């Protein structure tokens, strides 16, 4: 089921939580809504589900205008951050809930419900736990029961709010892979909310990066990591360093001096801007005469297979703090000066 969000605005007490957001989700896609807290990602998910009503704009499921429908009529599978399992019902009753509350005509027979619950439990690999209560399950098991419960109503769209947020790191990694496989098997259009970029980049077909109630960028993991389209996305996704620069005469200058990188067609027009690069996309410059960025090593630390150097760049009065990766054998003693230049970078106008 295609889902398209059209010019959605959502206000809470006149404060806009979402501002003119549009998004097209293709059928069968696994989409991540990624952003810091307060970026509106959960609000967008709840709007798609029908748990909130938009102030302006509409949401379409296929050709249908879903925004005219109630949450019950939309037939979405929603998995809540804290699972919201019904604590007084067994696992089987939880999963069957969406079927047992249907009006008599649409309700499957008891035996059929039992069969479907069995099949769903098998799908989430929890067979044999029918009679348990939610408080007798581990976090990961509860998460999967919540997923099975949402799947029981054969939803058009599966929506997950911070699906791994309440789990410990190890279970989180396992479930992440499991969810990916689950999605490949069932092929449901799936949208999940996360603030964990690693999770979003690893799991999703496309990542929607959000900030302050707007969508900053939509793209594959490669797109948002390698071709960020805004300073926010560059600094939010992955590690990065930024410096105020000026582009003149085809060269990028910092503190009035060229730093040894030439302007490319996709750089901004001459003038003031901000230079972004990633710590690993730099090369050390040994020739003292060659133009380069120069910084004083404030500290350096070993990080797995690399060494990270913290540099203070620029005037002594107001240095800019920048982190770069240096080869393990490079001397980066505290107090010495290091010269380097970015090999991959992006400039944004100020």
């Amino acid at each position: 089921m295609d889902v398209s969000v059209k010019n959605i605005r959502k206000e809470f007490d006149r404060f806009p939580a979402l501002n003119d957001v549009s998004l097209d989700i293709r059928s069968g896609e696994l989409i991540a809504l990624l952003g810091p807290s307060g970026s509106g990602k959960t609000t967008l998910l709840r709007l798609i589900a029908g748990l909130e009503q938009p102030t302006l704009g509409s949401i379409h499921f296929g050709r249908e205008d879903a925004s005219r429908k109630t949450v019950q009529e939309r037939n979405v599978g929603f998995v809540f951050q804290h699972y919201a399992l019904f604590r007084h019902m067994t696992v089987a009753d939880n999963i069957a809930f969406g079927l047992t509350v249907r009006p008599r005509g649409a309700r499957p027979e008891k035996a059929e419900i039992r069969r479907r619950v069995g099949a769903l439990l098998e799908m989430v690999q929890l067979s044999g736990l029918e009679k348990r209560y939610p408080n007798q399950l581990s976090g990961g098991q509860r998460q999967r029961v919540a997923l099975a419960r949402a799947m029981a109503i054969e939803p058009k769209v599966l929506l997950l709010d911070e699906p791994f947020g309440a789990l410990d790191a190890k279970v989180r990694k396992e479930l992440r892979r499991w969810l990916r496989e689950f999605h490949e098997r069932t092929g449901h259009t799936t949208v999940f909310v996360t603030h964990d970029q690693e999770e979003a980049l690893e799991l999703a077909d496309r990542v929607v990066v959000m900030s302050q109630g707007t969508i900053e960028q939509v793209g594959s993991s490669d797109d948002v990591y390698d071709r960020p389209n805004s300073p926010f996305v560059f600094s939010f996704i992955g590690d990065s360093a930024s410096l105020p620069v000026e582009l003149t005469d085809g060269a990028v200058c910092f503190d009035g001096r060229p730093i040894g990188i030439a302007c490319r067609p996709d750089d901004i027009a001459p003038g003031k801007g901000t230079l972004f690069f990633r710590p690993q996309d730099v090369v050390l410059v040994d020739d003292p005469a060659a133009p380069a960025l120069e910084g004083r090593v404030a500290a350096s630390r070993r990080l797995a297979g690399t060494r990270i150097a913290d540099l203070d760049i620029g005037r002594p009065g107001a240095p800019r703090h920048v982190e770069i990766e240096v080869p393990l054998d490079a001397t980066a003693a505290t107090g010495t000066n290091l010269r380097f230049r970015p090999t991959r970078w992006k400039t944004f106008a100020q």
Partner: protein
Amino acid sequence: MAHERRRLHSPTTEAPAARYTLMALALLFLALFLLLPLAAVFIEAFRKGTGAFLASLGEPDTLAAIRLTLLVAGIAVPLNLVFGVSAAWAIAKFEFKGKAFLTTLIDLPFSVSPVISGLVYVLLFGAGSALGPWLKSHGIEILFAVPGIVLATVFVTFPFVARELIPLMQEQGTGDEEAALSLGASGWQTFRYVTLPNIRWGLLYGVLLCNARAMGEFGAVSVVSGHIRGLTNTMPLHVEILYNEYNFVAAFAVASLLAGLALVTLVVKTVLELHYGAEISAGRKH
């Protein structure tokens, strides 16, 4: 060595002498002010034997008082059950203007003397009030009749269910309800199969306290009842009348019924707190 040993008890524990003094004081106080009077009620009730006890309970006026008390509680408790659940639902699950005011208002009966609560109804429905003559001309009796007693009781027992449920429902949030709705359940189904089971023990606890107060209320009911024997006397009022007539055995016999109710309430309350502490807010927050 002795010096070493004295320091071994935990820093927040007092020396044994202080501990035993405190415990003895508390127990003495309890015995003097709670257990002794309670025992006195039962001793007085049975002073002239079981026969006299039963005979005094069999008096038509006493039976009428018991019936009236059951009737009043039977009306007031369900009313406050419905009101309490709806008020708690509104306050815990929705945002609206005047919410803080409503919360404060619910507590009003707790902060007002019961006599004032009764007087309010006298002022509202009495002969001197604006409504009084109209009621009289239409033959509607409220004061010095059952409706007035029910109204006063409802007023006084108003907060019990709501106060119990509000913190409980606030803590539980709306997640379960949203889950049920997203699975296609209607509003009523969501309430019936999700909300109600989540609050059932807290609700029972609130109803229990509400009932105990409804049956035991004296002040407010005393003002509106008119003390008509066999007609508008509830059990607590009847106890007073019998006592003032020096009919001690009968007075204490009826009082022992109320005391028995209190004991049963206490036991059920303790059992609820023991087994469902997590699902009862009062156990932790009051």
